[in-house]
């Protein structure tokens, strides 16, 4: 290394220009917030494993291969100009671009020589798909590797070739029979290393020997996917068809849930029974129900509600949504889907216990879902309008782009299918609306769909078979009214409603009169109202309300109708609020006792009657006010503290006080949640030497405290120790420790 070369990452960072440092912060934003105090701080943060992993995850396969080349070189520091030689099949510009990407992100550093920081080495477990070195795996290699290899039988050779390709770790097959499987023979020969009960690893040296002159494996260049081409106008029309469909279906589902809400399961989510019910009611598949319900929830149109908060109900947002025009309604759904943390495709799959995941269950939450959707669609958005990728091609490309996240790509085909159902993409080609959604959010999405979706209509066609046909999406008001007076029979571009005696009765129950209904049908229908419909309304109205039901508290009856009339017209009984129900029967909304006393005061001689009709002879109870029920008032003022609470609080204060006083050395501060080496070092030293330490600690409830602790052990991220201030032995999670310092005094602070 030439003397003018920086020796460390921090030193190299100092030599970077402001722009380059800016580029680093943009590329790895997690190290930028909160702002590091200096370059050393920055370097420290860059070394945090989580941050390194995140940065590596975003690299494509070609870039990672260049990184592998540096990691695999026997010496630290590879001269830049030697790199192309290590990757003979990779074009020079790809190597240059990769080096640029890696140095910008400080995953490699150095100007003439490229160095890989230690955390990066640790983060790449199998560079270039090669296993660890034999020494690290603690297997003795055979003396003559090439010789041993050439002496293997084809089966054994096959196993080795497989392990030397992409992943050096393999699963050991069960060997129930007596004969040794090839893998077990290789284990015995020392060509494989056992890493646990069922897995074996191929040592790096063997892998390299098998690869021969291509130690890094075949070049991992960007795959050239087969591009799907469609007429953008056709794509938009088909997307609009899907959009119309999904809007209509979501409305159907929510209308059904409005009428009969689905129960909230104790485990969260919506029960299978409700799912089946919806499927049956709407004549769609149960899978469709799952998608639509999840979509409605993602768009904020469906949530838990009800008096006991135990039902899935349409939200207030749904009412507003219904008033919006179609493109905006679509945009709400599309945006909801794009940003949802729930993976709809997980619904119905079995979990480890073999139980199917319910719709809306919390088990489908995957925090990575929005990023995955966006990254998958972003790939499609790179193509010009009318071009895109089918789902297998898209997965191939994504696998190359983010090979370290390849295990997370399994939902991509499902996501693309969902995007298809929503009209965001059609057969892998983004629609104008879908493109708008990715680039400009909800508004742009709506704009992309505008003009493609039909304008709402304000009339229906009434037919003699008692169907009403709305030849397009209806204006909200008319749709609302029709939902009362008719049942939906078929939906889609148009809606077919059927008027039946049941639906007319429902309207009458809701307070409509026959005249109102006649008037409504005449107004709403563009065709003359068929005679059959008029007859139906009149028929049902004639029958409606012939039985009446009401609630009363008590009645007054007598066989002497004259007496009953006299009571009713008596001014002194006005307080009893009596009214005539039938000849000889008066009713009142007041309790029987009150009516009895009013009648007695007025000079009548009423007798109480039991439900069976026998006369009750009960002494009149002394009158009492209703009064307030005991315990109904809420206690006012702060809750009183129990004596033990007082003691604990005082101890807390004292301990914090003492800890502050004991703090003589500079505490090691740390960002909560990130354990730096120095904290651990200090803690382990304290454990080793039995020194009391001063701790700043945040407990699980988020309240901070300061303590002096006599540490006992430090295992698995937990510090165990005796808290002298509180007089208790307890365990501290290291990641909750905010600061730590040694207590450097002869006498430990005494508990008070």
């Amino acid at each position, binding site marked *: 290394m030439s003397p003018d070369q920086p020796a460390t990452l921090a030193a190299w960072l100092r030599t970077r220009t402001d722009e380059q440092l800016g580029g680093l912060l943009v590329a790895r934003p997690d190290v930028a917030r909160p702002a590091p105090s200096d370059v050393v701080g920055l370097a420290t943060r860059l070394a945090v494993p989580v941050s390194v992993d995140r940065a590596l995850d975003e690299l494509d396969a070609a870039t990672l291969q260049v990184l592998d080349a540096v990691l695999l070189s026997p010496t630290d520091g590879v001269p830049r100009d030697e790199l192309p030689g290590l990757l003979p099949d990779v074009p020079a510009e790809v190597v240059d671009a990769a080096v640029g990407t890696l140095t910008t992100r400080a995953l490699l550093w150095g100007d003439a020589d490229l160095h890989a920081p230690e955390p990066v080495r640790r983060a790449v477990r199998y560079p270039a798909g090669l296993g660890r070195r034999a020494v690290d795996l603690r297997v003795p290699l055979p003396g003559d590797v090439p010789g041993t290899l050439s002496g293997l039988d084809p089966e054994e050779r096959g196993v080795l070739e497989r392990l030397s390709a992409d992943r050096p770790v393999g699963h050991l097959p069960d060997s129930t029979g007596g004969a040794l499987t090839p893998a077990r023979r290789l284990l015995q020969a020392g060509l494989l290393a056992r890493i646990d009960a069922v897995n074996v690893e191929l040592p790096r040296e063997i892998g390299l020997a098998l690869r021969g002159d291509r130690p890094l494996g075949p070049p991992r260049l960007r795959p050239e996917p087969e591009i799907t081409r469609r007429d953008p106008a056709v794509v938009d029309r*088909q997307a609009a*068809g899907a959009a119309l469909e999904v809007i209509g279906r979501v409305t159907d589902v929510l209308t059904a849930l409005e009428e009969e809400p689905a129960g909230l399961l104790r485990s969260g989510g919506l029960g299978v029974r409700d799912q089946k019910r919806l499927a049956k009611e709407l004549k*769609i598949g149960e899978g469709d129900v799952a998608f639509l319900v999840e979509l409605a929830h993602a768009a904020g149109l469906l949530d838990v509600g009800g008096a006991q908060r135990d039902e899935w109900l349409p939200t207030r947002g749904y009412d507003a949504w219904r008033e919006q025009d179609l493109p905006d309604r679509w945009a709400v759904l599309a945006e909801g889907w794009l940003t949802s943390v729930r993976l709809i495709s997980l619904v119905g799959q079995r979990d480890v216990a073999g139980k199917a995941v319910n719709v809306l269950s919390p088990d489908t939450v995957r925090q990575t879902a929005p990023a995955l959707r966006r990254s998958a669609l972003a790939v499609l958005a790179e193509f010009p309008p009318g071009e895109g990728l089918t789902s297998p091609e898209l997965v191939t490309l994504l696998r190359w782009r983010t090979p370290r996240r390849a295990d997370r790509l399994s939902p991509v085909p499902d996501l693309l299918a969902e995007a298809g159902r929503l009209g965001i993409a059609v057969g892998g080609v983004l629609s104008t609306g879908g493109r708008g959604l990715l680039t400009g959010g909800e508004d742009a999405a709506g704009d992309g769909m505008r003009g493609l979706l039909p304008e709402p209509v304000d009339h229906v066609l009434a037919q003699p078979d*008692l169907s009403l046909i709305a030849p397009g999406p209806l204006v909200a008001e008319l749709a609302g009214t029709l939902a009362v007076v008719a049942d939906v029979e*078929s939906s889609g571009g148009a809606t077919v409603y059927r008027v039946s005696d049941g639906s007319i009765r429902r309207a009458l129950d809701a307070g409509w009169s026959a005249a109102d209904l006649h008037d409504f049908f005449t107004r709403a229908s563009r065709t003359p109202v068929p005679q*059959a419909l008029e007859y139906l309304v009149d028929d049902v109205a004639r029958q409606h309300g012939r039985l009446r039901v009401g609630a009363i508290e008590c009645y007054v009856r007598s066989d002497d109708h004259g007496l009953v009339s006299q009571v009713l017209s008596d001014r002194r009984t006005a307080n009893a609020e009596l009214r005539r129900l039938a000849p000889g029967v008066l009713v009142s909304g007041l309790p029987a006792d009150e009516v009895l006393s009013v009648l007695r005061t007025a000079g009548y001689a009423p007798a109480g009657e039991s439900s069976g009709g026998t006369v009750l002879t009960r002494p009149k109870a002394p009158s009492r006010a209703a009064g307030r029920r005991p315990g109904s008032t809420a206690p006012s003022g702060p809750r009183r503290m129990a004596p033990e609470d007082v003691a604990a609080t005082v101890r807390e204060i004292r301990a914090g006080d003492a800890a502050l006083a004991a703090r003589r050395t500079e505490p090691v501060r740390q960002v909560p949640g990130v354990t730096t080496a120095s904290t651990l070092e200090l803690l382990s030293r304290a454990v080793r030497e039995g020194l009391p330490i001063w701790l700043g600690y945040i407990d699980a409830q988020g309240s901070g405290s300061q303590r002096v602790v006599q540490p006992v052990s430090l295992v698995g991220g937990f510090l165990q120790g005796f808290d002298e201030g509180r007089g208790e032995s307890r365990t501290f999670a290291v990641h909750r420790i905010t600061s730590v310092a040694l207590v450097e005094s002869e006498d430990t602070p005494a508990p008070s």
Partner: protein
Amino acid sequence: MSDGPLIVQSDKTLLLEVDHPQSKECRAAIAPFAELERSPEHVHTYRITPLALWNARAAGHDAEQVVDALVRFSRYPVPHALLVDVADTMDRYGRLTLANHPVHGLTLTSTDKAVLEEVVRSKRVAPMLGARIDADSIVVHPSERGRLKQALLKVGWPAEDLAGYVDGQAHPIDLAQDDWHLRDYQQEAVDGFWAGGSGVVVLPCGAGKTLVGAAAMAEAKATTLILVTNTVSGRQWKRELIARTSLTEEEIGEYSGERKEIRPVTIATYQVITTRRKGEYRHLDLFDAQDWGLIVYDEVHLLPAPIFRLTADLQSRRRLGLTATLVREDGREDDVFSLIGPKRYDAPWRDIEAQGYIAPAECVEVRVSLDDEERMTYAVAEPEERYRIAATAQSKLPVIRRVLERHPEEQKLVIGAYLDQLDELGAALDAPVIQGSTTNKERERLFQAFRTGEIKTLVVSKVANFSIDLPEAAVAVQVSGTFGSRQEEAQRLGRVLRPKADGRQAHFYTVVSRDTLDSEYAAHRQRFLAEQGYAYTIVDAADLAGPGEVNGPDWVDEPAD
């Protein structure tokens, strides 16, 4: 956005706006692959079912045409998923073909190995397959031809039957078209059938299905077996065949409960073929009695299940099914498809009516208020008795009389389901009653008298539902029925739809008791008729104007347009 006449619904129904200028063109485009479900006044409903798509495929339409028709005429964007589904479904037909191999005989072949593999592994299909010839063909025993087609349809891979037919024993048959000619649609139906080999022709009642049968026979020029629903209908066939073809009385045999004649053309009833004695079908030999070149099934929608089983064995003969509707109340449309054949011709009723071949009908529901005593009887009756009590209410009688008085000059049928009521009506109206126990001879005599106009009114039970021919019935009055069955309604309506000599309008009355089960069933009826596109009016019995009164019919009905 286009402004087409068609709206495609999510549940694969199609709504066609009739008043739209493009509606005729659109109807023609979608008719091959969508079943007309309802045709009320303004918007017709079609449904795309797998069977309809396969029918279309069998008729030579491809998925592209279907998708194009949907996209071209649709007012709103069509969901992509629906189009994909349509194309997928259509693609399933014809992946498998049954054909005659010069060496191996009947073979099932496929160009798609995966499909063949799937059906070979299917439990339902596997037992019918023979030895594997190569990767994509399998020997099938000829006796399994029908059952295999049935099973393949059930597993969703309907096979195309290209194995051909035996010619049968030749027999000269010609149409005697001296004073009449086949109507255009009848000719089209025959051509469609002949080109397809076997299949079903759908024509409304009164549209001349018998003639389509006769023309098909003239095309085949071979011995023919005709299966009909009952003896009366069989005689009707015989009369027509003698009048319209070169066949003579001696060449046509009747195979029924009364007579067992086997002649070059034999007409057999479903009933006699399905008669069993000691658990065995006694008359199956009929199918082998002659080397039949053509088998005609009248009223396919009523074909009893045993005949399906027999038909499965007759797959090498040409089969013609005739019906007014493909809707079977037992839901065995798929068996008709696989055993008799796909739909070869279909003409919507309203069209044929517009051409003047069947009489336009006016449907009127007359509502009768029961008197207090009847209402009380009805209210306290057992649930299973209620309909009978409502339908046979005495209060109906004066109303029926009044309805009949409106049409003094017409031939009138009173149709009911309860024999007591019919007898009562017969006595009250002084009209003969025809019911199940009436002998065939007596029936023939009464029908003849009715035809000549000697008798103006006939009271008939449900025996009249099927296949009797009363050409001059212009008024039908329905007084009770079997719970508003759609099929019954279609049949009864068919009674008055025969073309009238002077093109007068037909009248179809239904007398119902208000606020009872009877009127509930009437609602089904009303819906069915309205869906068929008939004008349907409801009249209170009290408002039923007599002839010559305001709103009443004129003394002489004017000819319809």
